[in-house]
């Protein structure tokens, strides 16, 4: 699995690469249009992450190039908050998803994985972690083949934790994931409640406690 990341802000590009380095896919990166174009012509990628503000609208041009080459790799647009018109143009060109700056790296990781999963599994889509299985199409969670009922938010939180397994997720990043753009409204108390429910339901189904609390910062699924 190969992912190409095109981002002209070098500091950010470096951080993205560092964060995604431990994942089960390979990342390649470049910070300019010409190099990106070259890579697109030489290699095959399963997912593209493209900053749309790549100088003189070349981000959009890049998406056009990708789609013209009949490349069926998924495209995630990174954009500034106030350039939603460009995002719409990008989505019309065939991009699959978008993130607005500033986003959490864990969120980017989750979005990339969603695209890669769709590409690999095509249709039947299940994430497995030891005794837990999550069926994405039906949004069902099975523990040892037995169905466990979760509310929508609990399901979203569990999926987010498992997608980013092995990584520490800050409470802030969880709030932003569950309630995008509602930061000033949801206190961390809501996360505590949801996590307590998740832990309880999993252990009642005979599952080990994989959700570790990282003091003061957040949680880690391991």
């Amino acid at each position: 699995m190969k992912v190409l990341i095109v981002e002209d802000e070098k500091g950010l590009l470096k951080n993205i690469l560092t964060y995604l380095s431990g994942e089960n896919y390979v990342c390649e990166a470049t910070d300019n249009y010409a190099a990106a174009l070259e890579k697109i012509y030489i290699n095959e990628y399963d997912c593209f992450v493209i900053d749309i503000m790549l100088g003189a609208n070349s981000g959009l041009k890049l998406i056009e190039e990708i789609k013209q080459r009949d490349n069926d790799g998924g495209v995630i647009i990174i954009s500034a908050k106030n350039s939603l018109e460009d995002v719409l143009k990008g989505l019309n060109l065939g991009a699959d998803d978008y993130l607005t700056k500033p986003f959490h790296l864990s969120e980017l990781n989750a979005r990339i994985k969603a695209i890669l999963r769709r590409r690999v599994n095509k249709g039947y889509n299940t994430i497995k972690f030891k005794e837990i299985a999550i069926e994405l199409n039906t949004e069902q969670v099975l523990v040892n083949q037995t169905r466990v009922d979760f509310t929508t938010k609990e399901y979203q939180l569990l999926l987010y934790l498992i997608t980013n397994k092995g990584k520490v997720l800050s409470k802030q990043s969880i709030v932003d994931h569950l309630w995008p753009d509602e930061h000033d409204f949801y206190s961390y108390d809501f996360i505590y409640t949801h996590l307590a429910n998740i832990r309880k339901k999993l252990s009642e189904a005979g599952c080990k406690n994989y959700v570790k609390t990282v003091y003061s910062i957040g949680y880690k699924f391991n």
Partner: protein
Amino acid sequence: MIHQVDESLKEDKEAIMGFIQNNKNDVSELYKKISCSYYLKETVGEAQIKEKFSFVFGLDSLDGDYERFRELRTLVEIQNKNYELVLQESFVQNDSMILSISIYSIFLFGLITLGISFVNLNISKRLWLPFYAILKRIESYQPGKNKDLKFKGGTIDEFKILSTTLNEMSSRIDKSFANQKKFIDNISHELQTPLMIAKSNLELLFQQKKIDVKTAELYSRLDANLGTMKQLNNSLLLLSRIENEQFSDSEKIEISGIITDYLNQYNEQIDAKKIQVETTFNNEIQISMNPVLAEILIGNLIRNSIVHNDKSGDLLINISGNIMEISNTGPHVDIDPEMLFGKYVQFGKSENSTGIGLSIVKEICNYYCFTINYKIIGKAHVINIQFDTSESL
């Protein structure tokens, strides 16, 4: 007055004297000349009377009343005999004449005054016409809006100068307003990248193997503050997008539907605070506006009424006519209602509130010319919005 009558008596006397000296017999000639009555009296002995004026009362031959007369007594010598000549003139007659003259004068004066003021009024009305046009224009002036509308001074020089000055002033205000908008726009845009980098750096720090308790607490606080900064920046971006009229497309919106959606969406918070929600929709408000702005407007108001509500408080939402009223219980705050919708005003003290939500509400109301009001009734904070349903934007 007395002097005048005396003069006339003297003149009459001269006329009589002249008549006597010339020894003419035609009395009618004399009557033409004099206006007073007179008579001659023979004086006995050496009369030493010189000319003497005095007031006397006598019978007026015309109307039979006793009236005041002015009398002139003087000595004349006719054929070596001394006679006393007495001339009398009615003083009252003169009085009434003066009165009538005065009345006529006052009447005339009044007429002139009226005429002048009528002409003046008409002239000044026409004269000040451009001035009132300018006044009207100032009243309707809003910085950054109707830029093509200029002040016009007409043909009068002074107003021309005034208009030119006002045009210059308004264009300066417009310019600085545009600059301010651009500044906010640029700042919030430029802040996105450094914020992103700071956040991603912090996320990498979280992945470190061993973080001690104190560092973890510092990281966590840093994370929360970066989150607030992000939220503030998003709000500023939104504000400047509304001000720059980037939400021009509109569709038919039903307000009650949005309210119900948001109440469902915020179920968790409502339950957590044990807030009693009551909605009364007497009718439906249908309005043509941008769907994103409609959601932001309603969402912000409902969020605000939940965040600042008491534990086990009330939240009442009422629609009747074209007015939506949201009322929530909450701690008393000393705040000027006018200030409430200003930017960065903290409504009470809430830890997670950036205090910009209501100014976004206000900005959306301004954009669509809705009237928004805030008042405190007892323990309840009431915000009502009067939608402009007549206009289809």
